[in-house]
């Protein structure tokens, strides 16, 4: 039988160490909503999402109350919309109309983000893909809850540099379209390489074509819990350090597994995966940077940071895999800047630069995330950053991503306030030497060799 110290430990994690279920994300297949008429398409989408996700928020709240664990977000991911809207959408405005329909459903259902305004263009772009990409600035400027992601490369296909170049421009246009709100649109736009089909976290969530009609994916978080556990074992050797992280990750994942199974049962929708990601928030103590400091670097960015992060990421996965048979999504440690007070402090004190962050993305679970850069950064330089990140993902067979915000009218030294979970960020300097001739080459970078691995 459960004893009192176990009960106290669990409740302490929830009340003092920010343990929460970050999101219940319902993945919904929209392929069967396709139509040649955009009005019919929007109706089909509206009714299908409403039918399946009507009880999502209420169910999430019920589970939260009964188990005493906060479930912070209830979200929806959908089939990449360029696959669904190809024959209906002939213009950018048609696509924007679809985005607004999705935004309306999201608002009515009470969910905070809907992901899947997306295209998978890792090898080539269809006409529909390109139209969707070109509609992103307007779509994100005229909606509140829509998240967009574009997959521009993979280990199997190489990197579509035409899409990379285009995304450099689209990020700039999105920043300009939302200039009056600190270029907020870019916080909902991510460019990925090796994007997983079952990721429940925004902004990169979409419901891949390999998935069932509807699915429940759950994202669990808890950097504060890991940090606290490590605080209790200061000076321990690496074996004990790793063991502590694994045990903690195990416990956190089990809570996610329970919530996912309950949600799946109550909603009558199959359970997909648990994504155990240490996803920081701006709340004090809910920080991946603080864990790195606890492991032993003075500030994130100091020598040793990449090794410490590699260790953390791997132990989190190992603990999570033991706790649930279906671990998926991104599972690992996120290293966003604006959403992590410890990272913000590290940037402000000069310890952390974008180049070190890039090195860290080789071993973290995603990539360059929530980084504000000067508004006058050329589109080609942004494309260069995307290409670098995609290359890291492609060669290392991992997911990488870029979510950067070239904040219009701001430059190094300024601060940007996004609010809520998105936090605030100092504008970071980037290398001012250009890469225009590289980025303007047409075509794609071939897939890497899968043998001769030295």
């Amino acid at each position, binding site marked *: 039988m459960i004893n*009192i*110290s176990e*009960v106290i430990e*669990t409740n302490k994690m929830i009340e003092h160490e920010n343990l929460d279920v970050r999101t219940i994300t319902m993945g919904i297949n929209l392929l069967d909503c396709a139509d040649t008429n955009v009005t019919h398409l929007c109706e089909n989408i509206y009714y299908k999402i409403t039918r399946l996700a009507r009880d999502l928020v209420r169910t999430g709240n019920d589970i939260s109350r009964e188990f005493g664990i906060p479930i912070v977000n209830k979200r929806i991911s959908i089939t990449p919309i360029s696959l669904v809207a190809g024959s209906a959408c002939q213009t950018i405005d048609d696509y924007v109309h679809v985005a607004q329909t999705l935004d309306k459903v999201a608002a009515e259902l009470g969910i905070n983000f809907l992901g899947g305004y997306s295209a998978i263009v890792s090898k080539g772009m269809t006409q529909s893909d390109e139209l969707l990409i070109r509609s992103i600035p307007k779509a994100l400027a005229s909606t509140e809850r829509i998240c967009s992601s574009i997959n521009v490369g993979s280990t199997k296909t190489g990197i579509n540099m035409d899409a990379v170049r285009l995304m450099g421009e689209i990020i700039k246009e999105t920043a300009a379209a939302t200039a009056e709100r600190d270029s907020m649109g870019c916080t909902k736009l991510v460019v990925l390489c090796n994007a997983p089909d079952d990721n429940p976290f925004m902004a990169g969530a979409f419901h891949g074509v390999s998935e069932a009609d509807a699915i429940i994916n759950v994202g669990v978080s808890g950097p504060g819990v890991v940090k606290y556990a490590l605080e209790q074992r200061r000076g321990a050797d690496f074996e004990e350090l790793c063991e502590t992280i694994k045990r903690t990750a195990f416990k956190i994942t089990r*809570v996610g597994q329970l919530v996912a199974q309950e949600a799946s049962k109550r909603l009558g929708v199959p359970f997909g995966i648990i994504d155990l990601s240490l996803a920081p928030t701006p709340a004090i103590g809910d920080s991946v940077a603080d864990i790195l400091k606890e492991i032993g670097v003075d500030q994130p960015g100091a020598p040793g940071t990449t090794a410490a992060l590699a260790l953390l990421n791997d132990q989190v996965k190992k603990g999570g895999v033991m706790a649930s048979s279906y671990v998926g999504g991104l599972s690992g440690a996120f290293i966003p800047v604006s959403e992590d007070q410890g990272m913000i402090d590290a940037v402000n004190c000069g310890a952390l630069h974008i180049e070190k962050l890039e090195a860290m993305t080789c071993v973290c679970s995603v990539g360059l995330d929530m980084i504000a850069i000067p508004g006058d950064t050329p589109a080609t330089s942004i494309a260069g950053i995307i290409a670098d990140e995609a290359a890291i993902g492609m060669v290392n067979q991992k997911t990488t991503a870029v979510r950067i915000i070239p904040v219009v009218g701001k430059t190094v030294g300024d601060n940007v306030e996004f609010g809520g979970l998105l936090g605030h960020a100092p504008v970071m300097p980037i290398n001012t030497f250009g890469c225009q001739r590289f980025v303007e080459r047409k075509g794609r970078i071939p897939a890497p060799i899968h043998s001769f691995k030295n």
Partner: protein
Amino acid sequence: MNKSIITVVGKDTVGIIAKVCTYLADNNVNILDISQTIVQEYFNMMMIVDMSRMKKPFEVASTELGELGEKMGVQIKCQREEIFDKMHRI
């Protein structure tokens, strides 16, 4: 069996257990186990209860217990047992 865990945390005063037990008895909730400890000068009590014969919905009982706690200046939480079981047992 519909097991839940009730926890009471706060400054120790006279009659906390009595009041919680009275509420549970009035609502046909059977107590299976009680234990208590002092952590950092705070009174911590845990009860394992069976709510399968309770007439009220879980949320109502949980809210009422919370309110009862507020009156006594302690925090009372009611959670389904599985969250602890899953986390601490393989």
